[in-house]
Structure formats: structure tokens, C-alpha cells
């Protein structure tokens, strides 16, 4: 069955960790939780593919983990607070992972943050429906609501 569509799927560059992704990615997130223990980190590092067999993962999920493809892990149901534990096992911070997921170099990403971060302008909507600011959208929504109320009345 294809993924059910939600309003938030329109936000670009974002994988919302919802109930469906949580169901799908249970194995990824439980694998990541296991890395909270030192002996598990060692076992994973010693033979990654073998260690991953202990978890209920699809071949695509296993592949994403082995390749450290963080965006793909999120798409397949991983959550950043969990996958960050894999990052930590590799010695990386949240910011390091964030830079990787955006496709920037570490330096470029750090400079973008120092300059005030990524602007929301142009980053609100894939479809362009919500391209304008939320404030601008509100009065229209209110006007529509009034109209429909007056029709009913």
C-alpha cells in the first residue's frame, strides 16, 4: 500500500516521524537504541552487516544504515534522535549529521548557521500552496470560514 498522504508531506526536505514511519522503522530505531551500550557499539563496529541481522530490517534499511545514508534512514522510518546514536558511534555530533543531510560541507553548514540559519523563505512548500507567510494566509482562511457560515445561516 502506498504511503497515505498528509499535509506535512508538502514541506520540502522533511521526513516527519509519524505513526506510519514509526511502525515501518521500528527495527532501525531499536538498532540505534542498542548502540547506547558500549559492548553493542563494539560488536557493531567489529562486523556491521552481521550485527544488523539481529534486528528486523528490510534490505533497503540495512543498506541505508551500512551506507550511513541518513536521509534514507529517515525516509524508511528512522528518527533523528535515534539515528544520532549511530552518528555518535561514528564520533559525529548532531550538527555534523545535519550538514551531511543537507548535502553541505561542514564548513558551509557552520557558516550558514552563524549567518542566521536557513531562511524559511522559499522553503515552506513543495507545491507552492503555502509559499506565502502564514500570516498572509490567515485572513483569507477566516474570510472563507465567514462565507461558509453565512451560507449555512
Amino acid at each position, binding site marked *: 500500500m502506498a504511503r497515505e498522504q498528509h*499535509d*506535512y508531506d508538502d*514541506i*520540502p*526536505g*522533511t*521526513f*516527519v*516521524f*509519524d*505513526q506510519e514511519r*514509526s511502525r515501518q522503522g*521500528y527495527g532501525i*530505531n*531499536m538498532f*540505534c*537504541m542498542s*548502540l*547506547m551500550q558500549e559492548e553493542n557499539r563494539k560488536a557493531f563496529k567489529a562486523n556491521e552487516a552481521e550485527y544488523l541481522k539481529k534486528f528486523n530490517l528490510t534490505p533497503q534499511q540495512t543498506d541505508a544504515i551500512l551506507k550511513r545514508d541518513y*536521509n534514507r534512514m*529517515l525516509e524508511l522510518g528512522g*528518527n*533523528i*534522535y*535515534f539515528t544520532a*546514536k549511530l552518528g*555518535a*558511534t561514528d564520533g559525529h*555530533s*548532531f*550538527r555534523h*549529521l*545535519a*550538514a551531511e*543531510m*543537507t*548535502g553541505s560541507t561542514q564548513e558551509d*553548514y557552520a557558516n*550558514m*548557521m*552563524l549567518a*542566521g*540559519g*536557513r*531562511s*524559511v523563505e522559499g*522553503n*515552506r*512548500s513543495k507545491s507552492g500552496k*503555502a509559499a506565502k507567510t*502564514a500570516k498572509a494566509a490567515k485572513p483569507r482562511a477566516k474570510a472563507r470560514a465567514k462565507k461558509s457560515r453565512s451560507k449555512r445561516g
Partner: protein
Amino acid sequence: MARIIAGVSSSHVPAIGAAIDNHQTEEPYWKRVFSGFEKSKEWMERTKPDVCIVVYNDHASAFSVEIVPTFALGCAAEFPPADEGWGPRPVPVVKGHPQLAAHIAQSVILDEFDITVVNKMEVDHGLTVPMNLLFGSPKAWPCPVIPLAVNVVLYPPPTGHRCFMLGRAIKKAVESYPEDLRVVIFGTGGMSHQISGPRAGLINSKFDKAFLDNLTKDPKKLTRIPHIEYMREAGAEGIEMVMWLIMRGALDDKVDEVYRFYTVPASNTAVGHIILENRARARKPAAKLTRSKMKRAAARAKVERIRG
């Protein structure tokens, strides 16, 4: 009678904790962040609450994906710092206030908030970073703390309105506790940030500043922000800001904003911080007014019944 005297909100960025633990607070990048909390620490030192309620979220430390409670109230006698993968943070064990926590649990559940009671829980940076920002790094925390963990990791988190109303129920619970305690409530997390996916690094200062303004003056407006708007405007993880509304709901309608600080960035995040104080109450006249209002309401109800 116990009373909530003030509310504090603050971001809880893990890198702030790391900067404290690694003694980097004097480095220019971090000094910019920490200097914004100097006045807050002085305020806390003067205020000396008897108990703090800290609303925060767990980040896959105490709760994995096995159990995901929407609201989990820490009712234990103590809460050790969690090992988040680098060993537990070198901060004191958080001492709870089991009596007040039990009272709050009993009261809010009867008020229709079906919270989870937690008697064993480790607390992560979500709770300990704001503690450091307001109390510094003492050998022991100066007062007991009741943790309230809110799920903002697995979508959907509770709505902003639900959070605000839980705050209202907490206020009622605290005010019905017989011992004279002065309570400060923390709302933590945010402000705008996204740490996941290709849109990571998103910051929206305009949204954040409007949120801070309305938190003081018109919090009801904030309770109407739908989840999609938080995620779109303030980043996927910016949705944490719903937790600030629990803090705000636990305060009176009219509050005094005594301090505010905002800076970008700390790691991936816009750091926001605000201190709101309840105004001193003239208790007796207020009580009289309420009674007379009740009399009028009762008289009106009688008239209605007669007419009906």
C-alpha cells in the same frame, strides 16, 4: 496553599550541555549564549523556589520507541542523569518531590488529563540543560524538581491547546496542595530549528519573536497554531514549542515579562528564553468577588429554571 509564582522557558540544546561539560563557556561562540542567562541566574537566586516543575521532552533516553507516553509525570524520589551515548552528564542527581507529584497526578487525571505516572526514570539534556542555564553548575540542585516529559518526537505531539489546558490543570492542582510552597514551572525546547533531512538548519526568527511576544500578551492565540504551521514555519523539531504552552497555561492570564533573551545559533537551534511572573494576588477581595459572581450566576440559573 502552594502557588506557581513564575514560569521560565528556555531552549535545551544538547550542545549547550556539552559546552558546559567541556568547559567551553568562555569561548566567544558560547559566551554569546551563556551571557544571556547571567541575569536569569541572578533572578533564580533571588526567587529561590521551593519546587520546580520542568516540562521537557526525552530524546530516546528514558523512552525508546517501545513505549511512547504523551505526558509522563515523574513521581519518583530521584531521577539520575541518563547516559545519552557519551556517558551520563556530570550533573547532580535530580531530587523529586513525590508528595506534590502524587497530588498533581491525582488532580489532573480527575481533570481528564490521562497522564502516565513514572516512578523510575532517567532524565536527559532536555531537563538538565535548562537547569544548568538557570541554576549554574552546583554540587546539588538547590530545590526538588518534578519532571514532566512530553512526547514531541513521535508525530503527533499533543496540540498546543491541549498543552495549555494541561497547564491550567497543573495550576489548579498546585493551588489545591495544602503546604505553602512557591513553585516555578519551566517550559523547555525550541525555538525554531530543524535537525533532520535536507531542510536542516532552518531558523525563523520572525516566528520566534512573535511567539515570545504572544506568550506574554496573548497566549490563547498561540494555542490555535496547528502542528503543520510549527513544522513549516519553525522547522520539523520546532514543534517542541508546544511545551512552552504548558508552562504558560499554568500561569495567570496576566503576567509580567521580567526578562527575555534570544540568539542564533547554538549548534542548529535558535535559543529563546523568557521569564514570566505572576502578579501578586490580593487574595481576600478576589475571593469575595468570586463568591458574589457565583451568587449572581446561581440567581440567573434559578431564573432560567423557573422560565424553563
